[in-house]
């Protein structure tokens, strides 16, 4: 039976504005859902039910007075545990911060509050967001709502699983090598990696780099765009990638005419590791709808050198962020953090310079490729979600992976471009887990990408095999 918490954020906001639904009632519905399934899924790791209730009452009163409390008024939201929320335990998934309670909100949280959102709690993440999983030694593993023996992906896995179970209508995430996209794909929800700086993040440790971006997640493209409209656009002087942007229009996009779009399809960017089963599903699904576009072709820019460039730069960033921690607290840190940091120790500045050059060349090839197409569509993940007890696959199609990021090349290659990318669900894969696409747009072309994704989502949802999958909540209770 559909509860208020199962409605879309867009519908909920409308009902709240029309005073047909009370934010207090919606909050109660979300809390009830969390209570029912979070024991199995472990997506929410910190909750502020009391604070949320007070806020819901305030919003309700404001609306009763005829005030406009903002585009997200009364909507509960889950915040990834890498983001500081005032007064709310924020661990970054690390034992080093297991009792950390920030005394101030990050700028993006302050903006969400201003937009009327109700900060309900924190969603789980791997330690410091490292890796495409969601498990840590503070809270344990988050499970996939479609199969609790498997991972929901990561690092925004708590947010993705919470959305899939309708614990909240909206959730925040972040993405370096694919952390908004991978968990969205494996959990059957939407994650949007915006252009760097669109959602300013003043606490970014390495403000010169644009690997890490903040972004929105939702159960639909429209919900995701609604959240994004409230997140984006406030330049913060502390984030040199930040820029002023009028994002309000993202809340009210008109779906694009698919018949006017030129689209390139690539199952693996030519040579990124992608499981054969995923490729089969990708070909079958895209085969069902590629004719709707003005132009559909198979193609991709050349990814030579991209894997190594990403790995070197990632190691530099890991050393930057974690070297001191690894030296002092090795035993408290996850193996991914230690391995990724130590992998950089033998590298030289010349390796970094070569990676910078390779990155730049890939950036150029990608932008040139996107001159001739509006969208590039790829699989959302390289393989189906893995079992928590066996861990990430060490080989794909029989080929061994050299490191834990190799299998993410299909996503990390897009990170390096800076172009906006949205992950959109598309039915189930051959293993019964959610399957989805990554859709990359043109540089700075976020509005066009979201409008195209809106239209494509409608088309996909009309076909039972391609519609967004819904987990069986009964099984999770």
């Amino acid at each position, binding site marked *: 039976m559909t509860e208020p918490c199962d409605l879309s954020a867009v519908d909920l906001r409308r009902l709240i504005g029309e005073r047909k639904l009370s934010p207090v009632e919606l909050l109660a519905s979300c809390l009830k859902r969390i209570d029912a399934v979070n024991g199995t899924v472990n997506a929410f790791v910190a909750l502020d039910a009391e604070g949320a209730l007070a806020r819901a009452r305030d919003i309700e009163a404001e609306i009763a007075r005829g005030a406009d409390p903002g585009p997200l008024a009364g909507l509960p939201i889950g915040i990834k545990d890498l983001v500081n929320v005032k007064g709310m335990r924020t661990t970054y998934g690390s034992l080093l911060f297991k009792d950390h309670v920030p005394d101030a909100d990050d700028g993006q949280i302050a903006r969400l509050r201003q937009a009327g959102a109700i900060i309900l709690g924190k969603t789980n993440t791997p330690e410091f967001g490292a890796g495409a999983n969601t498990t840590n030694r503070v809270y344990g593993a988050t499970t996939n709502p479609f199969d609790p023996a498997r991972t929901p992906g990561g690092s925004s896995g708590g947010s993705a699983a919470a959305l899939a179970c309708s614990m909240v209508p909206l959730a925040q995430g972040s993405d370096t090598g694919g952390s908004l996209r991978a968990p969205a794909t494996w959990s059957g929800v939407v994650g949007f990696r915006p252009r760097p700086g669109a959602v300013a993040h003043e606490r970014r440790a390495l403000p010169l780099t644009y690997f890490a971006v903040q972004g929105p997640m939702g159960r639909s493209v429209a919900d995701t765009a609604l959240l994004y409209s409230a997140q984006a656009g406030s330049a913060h002087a502390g984030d040199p990638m930040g820029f002023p*942007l009028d994002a309000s229009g993202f809340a009210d996009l008109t779906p694009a005419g698919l018949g006017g779009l030129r689209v390139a399809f690539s199952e693996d960017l030519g040579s990124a590791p992608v499981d054969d089963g995923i490729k089969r599903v990708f070909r079958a699904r895209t085969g069902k709808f590629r004719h709707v576009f003005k132009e559909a072709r198979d193609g991709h820019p050349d990814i030579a050198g991209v894997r190594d460039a990403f790995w070197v730069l990632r190691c530099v960033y890991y050393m*930057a962020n974690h070297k001191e921690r690894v030296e002092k607290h090795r035993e408290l840190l996850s193996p991914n953090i230690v391995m990724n940091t130590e992998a950089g120790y033998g590298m030289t500045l010349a390796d970094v310079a070569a990676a910078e050059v390779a990155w730049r060349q890939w950036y150029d090839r990608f932008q040139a490729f996107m001159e001739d197409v509006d969208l590039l569509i790829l699989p959302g993940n390289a393989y189906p979600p893995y079992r928590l007890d066996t861990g990430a696959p060490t080989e794909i199609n029989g080929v061994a992976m050299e490191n834990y990021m190799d299998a993410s090349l299909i996503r990390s290659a897009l990170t390096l471009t800076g172009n906006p990318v949205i992950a959109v669900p598309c039915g189930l894969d051959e293993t019964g887990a959610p399957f989805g696409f990554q859709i990359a747009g043109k540089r700075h072309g976020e509005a066009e990408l979201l409008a195209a994704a809106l239209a494509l989502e409608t088309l996909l949802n009309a076909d039972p095999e391609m519609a967004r999958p819904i987990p069986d909540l009964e099984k999770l209770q």
Partner: protein
Amino acid sequence: MTQDLCDLTATEARRLIGTKEISPVELLESCIARIEAVDGAVNCMVTRAFDRAREEAKVAERMVLDGDDLGLLHGLPIGIKDLEATEGVRTTYGSLIYKDNVPAADQGSVAAVRAEGAIVVGKTNTPEFGAGANTKNRVFGATGNPFAPVKTCAGSSGGSAVALATGMVPIASGSDYGGSLRTPAGFCGVVGFRPSPGTVPAEAKASALMPWSQLGPMARTVADAALLLQAQMDDDRRDPFSGLVDPRLFGSVDGLDLGSIRAAITPDLGCCPVDDGIRATFTARTDAFRGVFAEAQDRAPDFGDIHRVFEIFRGVTFVALHHERLKNHKDLLGPNVIDNTTRGLDVTAADVGWGLVEQGKLMRRFIDMFDEVDVMICPAASVSPFPHEQLYVDEINGEKMPTYMRWLAISYVPTMALACSCVIPCGVDHRGMPFGLQVMAPGGKDALVLAVAHALEGYFAGRPDFARPVPDLKKLQS
């Protein structure tokens, strides 16, 4: 001779072209005459494109007479730094490796100004690949300071600064990593503006994801530099930092009250070597005008270990650009390029990681200070112009400089904090050579910095000790 058309400001010349009071042809001929008269003494316009310029000036004149829509820079002669590729005009990068290089196409920054009607008269000299702040190279030799040709004009946009100071062109392009738009402006008594990253896109940078090197405008006045910047600004997909152009930069630089501005004033940014004579000049000048501001605070933020940060990222840039060349053409490379690249090869990736973190910290302390001030003011350069025989400054106040770049700390520190910074002339120093000030604010505040610089320039104009110095051109002709 100071009444020649070539001595007009760009803004005034452009206005007179629009009203048909002067012709682009006359203006160009005046510029060419000036180049021919004085360049023998200063050697700044090292490749000349007079034939094409003359053809373009005729077309420009025709367009005026026909009542066509005219671009922002219509009919204005411009000098292009020899690090920027120009279609059909030799572009050497100051390097023997490229001494006969004639590009097939303009790079974006050149195409942009030509699209707005500017006429390229020639290429201005630069040190090899822009390395270092002494404009001399093995292709063209040294560019002399118009106030004393045996001294350096600084660099790396030294040729452009000299061309402006001597009235050869009303506007010129430059670029700036550690001060290359600012130091030469300071040494030659002109204006150089380092914009925020991406404001003027550069499509061909090897390490494009590092925002240190930036293209920008040079001119004799702030308003002229702002006019050129408007033509240079663009969004180019090949420069990851380019993007939404700040619409405020299309507004006028006029109308700001200095009385509403809170200024931080510092002779040395708290961490840079500055010659005692320059320090004394700076203090005397700022003491005399600090009263114009709403508040003047003697302060600078804590820039932490910024010299090490600079050296690490300089290493990344030089190794990215020159590692191959160092292997294959070491004999053709100059000592600065070899030194910078070789030093970079000794650094680890972990050091680069450390540099990223330290840069983030120091930049945020810089930005935080601007909760309490609007702009920060410091000297344009750390020393008075020195003989160009000397490749760089190796000692300040008796203290040995550890690298060939350290004397440029006063300008590379703002770079590492991603500031935008405008150099304006402010009289002469203790040795009678041009003295300049930097006016800066955090990245994104370009319009504010230009407005404050313009207002200060106006305040200085009426005061003999503060006004822009003008070189004695007669001396340069004899």
